[in-house]
Structures are given as structure tokens and as C-alpha cells.
């Protein structure tokens, strides 16, 4: 999840040779105290590298892969699979697509009526993990990163995934290494070189039956989430009425 400060300093020197730390934090929008603390603790967060790269107009993936741990970020690039792309279409966009196809009658010429919602959506992370799953992906992530399975599952439910876990998941599944960084929102699809409108194209190419079954699965999952939220609301209401 982080790069060593020494390597970071070297990289920063190569990117912005004559810029003070204060100027770097101002330009990249990182709080000075945050940056200073990361440097002192010897662990600079990936998001810091990403923000600075963007501020100085440096290729973000190239910047990340200049650090030893992330060498394969450039070399490991693969275009996203169809399943990965479809997993990044939000539930509502899937439903819109069903309605659009129904209205148009001709399925193959009708693209999404409006642009798809920007990535990531509310269940991007879980959807992505399910899309690249190879039967034992979760166990292998827990094992490789010494992460308790319930922690991983809590992260997925919260639609979060630490960058290291996202990268390791992609390595295990054999998909493009940067995919996980896109679905967690750390990088944009353009930055990692996903083709433009790739999600739209994948969605257009999805056969009717698969589209409907996928939407049903997603709605089922959404229903479970909503039921849990309802229960939590109910619980909070009881607490509030009696103890608030």
C-alpha cells in the first residue's frame, strides 16, 4: 500500500527536481502535514504518488511502476476482459439498457441511451472480484497477503480494497494488473489505458438473456443489501426512541 520514502524521494527528484516539498504538496493538493508524516514514517501512500504524478503531468502507471514492488504495472498491462468491463456497469445502467433495448426493438444498433455512470459504482469492487474469480481467488488473496477472510469480505462489502490487495488479486487471476486500481477509483480508466467506451461496447455486445440474468442477480444482491440497511435503520430507530 506504500512505497519507501527513500525511493519516493529519488522519484520525486526525477519528476520535480527543483520543487520544494511545500510546493509539491500545494500543487498536488496533499496536506503538507500528511506528506511530511508519510515521509517520516518511511511509507508513502500510493495515492500520494498518484496525486503528484497528476499534478506534474507524469504518466501515473509509469510513475508507480518505477517502484520495485510495482514493476509489473506497465509490463503486466492487459486490456480489460469482457467480464471486468460488464462488472463496472452500474445496476441502474444495466436496467436502463434493458429498457432501451425493449423500446428500440432492434438490439444491436441501440447503445446506452445516455452515457454510463462514471466508475466506480456502488458495488464496483465486489463485482470486479467476482468477474475475475478463479474459484479460489479469495482464499489465495487471504493467504498471500495474510489477510483474515472476514476482513477481506468486510472490505468488499464496503466497496473498498487496499491498492496492494487489488494488485495482488489481479496478479493471481491473471488479468491486467492495474484493473483493480481502476475499480477502486485510485486510477481512471484512461490512465491505465482502457479503450475509450470499452464498457459501452461490452454492454452493447451482451446478449439479451445474459443481460437480463445479470440484472436479476444484481437486483437480488441489491435487495439483500437493502434489507440489511432496513434492519439497521429499524435498529437505530429503536435505539433512538428509547435511549436517544
Amino acid at each position, binding site marked *: 500500500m506504500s512505497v519507501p520514502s527513500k525511493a519516493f524521494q529519488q522519484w520525486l527528484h526525477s519528476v520535480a527536481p527543483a520543487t520544494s516539498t511545500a510546493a509539491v504538496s500545494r500543487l498536488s493538493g496533499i496536506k503538507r502535514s500528511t506528506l511530511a508524516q508519510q515521509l517520516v514514517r518511511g511509507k508513502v501512500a500510493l495515492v500520494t504518488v498518484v496525486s503528484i504524478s497528476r499534478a506534474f503531468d507524469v504518466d501515473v502507471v509509469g510513475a508507480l511502476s518505477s517502484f520495485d514492488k510495482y514493476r509489473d504495472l506497465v509490463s503486466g498491462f492487459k486490456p480489460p476482459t469482457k467480464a471486468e468491463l460488464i462488472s463496472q456497469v452500474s445496476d441502474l445502467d444495466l436496467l436502463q439498457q434493458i429498457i432501451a433495448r425493449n423500446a428500440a426493438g432492434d438490439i444491436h444498433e441501440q447503445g446506452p441511451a445516455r452515457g454510463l455512470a462514471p466508475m466506480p459504482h456502488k458495488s464496483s469492487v465486489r463485482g470486479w472480484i467476482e468477474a475475475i474469480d478463479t474459484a479460489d481467488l479469495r482464499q489465495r488473496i487471504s493467504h498471500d497477503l495474510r489477510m483474515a477472510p472476514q476482513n477481506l469480505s468486510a472490505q468488499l462489502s464496503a466497496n473498498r480494497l487496499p491498492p496492494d490487495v487489488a494488485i495482488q488479486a489481479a496478479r493471481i487471476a491473471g488479468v491486467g494488473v492495474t484493473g483493480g486500481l481502476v475499480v477502486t477509483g485510485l486510477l481512471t480508466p484512461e490512465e491505465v489505458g482502457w479503450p475509450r467506451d470499452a464498457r459501452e461496447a461490452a454492454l452493447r455486445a451482451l446478449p439479451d438473456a445474459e443481460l437480463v440474468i445479470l440484472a436479476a442477480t444484481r437486483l437480488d444482491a441489491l435487495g439483500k443489501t437493502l434489507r440489511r440497511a432496513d434492519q439497521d*435503520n429499524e435498529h437505530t430507530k429503536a435505539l433512538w426512541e428509547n435511549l436517544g
Partner: protein
Amino acid sequence: MIAVLQWVALTLCLMCAAWRLPAAFKGRNAGLFWAFLLLSVAVGLSLPSIYLRADALLGGRNLANLAVRFALYAIFYILAAKLAGAYRAAHGQRLIRGPVGVSVLVLIAAGTLVLFLLSDLPVSSTGLAAYSDQPTVRAYALAGRLYPAYAAACLLRPSAHAALTAGRRIERVAAALICSSFAMVLALTALQVASLPVFLLIDLFAYGAIVCMAVGLALVWISLWSTGNGSACRPLARE
């Protein structure tokens, strides 16, 4: 060490009562304010320096001890009823506020009063320690533990269930503290009924239970405050 715990418990109860004061003025769950105010009085009266002075004002015949008993009954009734509602324990609520619960409370309160009047307590003594050789005083002490133990037994399961299933971590921790508070009340009653010579442990449980209850409820208030006064979140709404 017990003295430290007593003062910590007293401070926490006073802080909780102060915290509830604005809400009590507005009429929101004023019972909680009274429960913590009474709890502060009860804990305060278990400290000899306060008990002896307060009892002197009441005539020096240990009426203050009787006041502590009745305060404890009121505290446990209020807290148990509120918590049964908060943890949606319909069964627990019936056992506390229903006819069974109220008759248990009235019976025990009447018994306490009778046993107090039957005892010979001419001089102030904190916790009636000087009279523990009288059978009526021992029965009186036991009766004083019965209602708290009954209320705690009714709430043990609902609070344990909430500690395991509540949605947010802070709510689970709060419920776990409240549950352990009830468990300590039950444990100390068991120790007292068995009349084992473990007075340090009994005091530890008694004041530990108060500290856990105060901290647990404070956590509930913090969690309610951070969710915006119990307003529901709507997951379908766009972010």
C-alpha cells in the same frame, strides 16, 4: 483500589446525568436523566464520607440506606425498560413493565421496607456493615439484590444478541458493555447468595457494572449523535 473505582463510577454517573440534562428538559427520555441522577446518589451514599453526613441529616437511623435500595429499584426498572425497548426485546419488556414485572418489583420493595423496619439500626453505618450479624439485615441485603438480578436476567439475552448482531461496531461495543454490566450484576448476586467471603470481588463487580453501563450508554449516545439523530439512511438514493 475499590475507592478509586467508586469515585470513577460516581464521576461517570454525574457526567451521564449532566449529559442527559438538556434532553430531559426537552422531555426526551427524561427517565435516563433520573436513572443516572439516582445512580449518582446511590454510588455517593456508598462512600462512607458522604453516607455518614447524609444519614446524619436524615436522623442517623440509616434511612439513607433504605433510600439507596429504593433508588436502585427505580434505576433498574428505568434502565431495563428502556433497554428492552431499545433492543426490541418484546419478551423482556413484558417481564419488566408487564404485570409480572411490576408485581415482582412491588413485592420486593414491600419486603425491603418490612425487613428494614424489623431491623434494629440505631447508629449510622455505611452499607449496614456494623449490623451484618442480624438475620433481618442479611435478608434485607439479599432482597436489595433480588430486583436488580431479576432485571439483569431479563436483559442479558437481548443485550448479548445486540452485541453480536448490531450493524455498526460502536453499537456492538456499547451492547457488549451493557451486557457485561448485567452479567456482573448477576454474578455478584450469585456470590452474595452463596455468601462466599469474596468482598473485594463483589465490590469490583458492583462498581464495574456501573462503569460498564455508563460507558455503554455513552457510546450509544455517541453513535446516535454521529448517525444524525436516528434519521434513516437511504441506500437506493444517488450519492
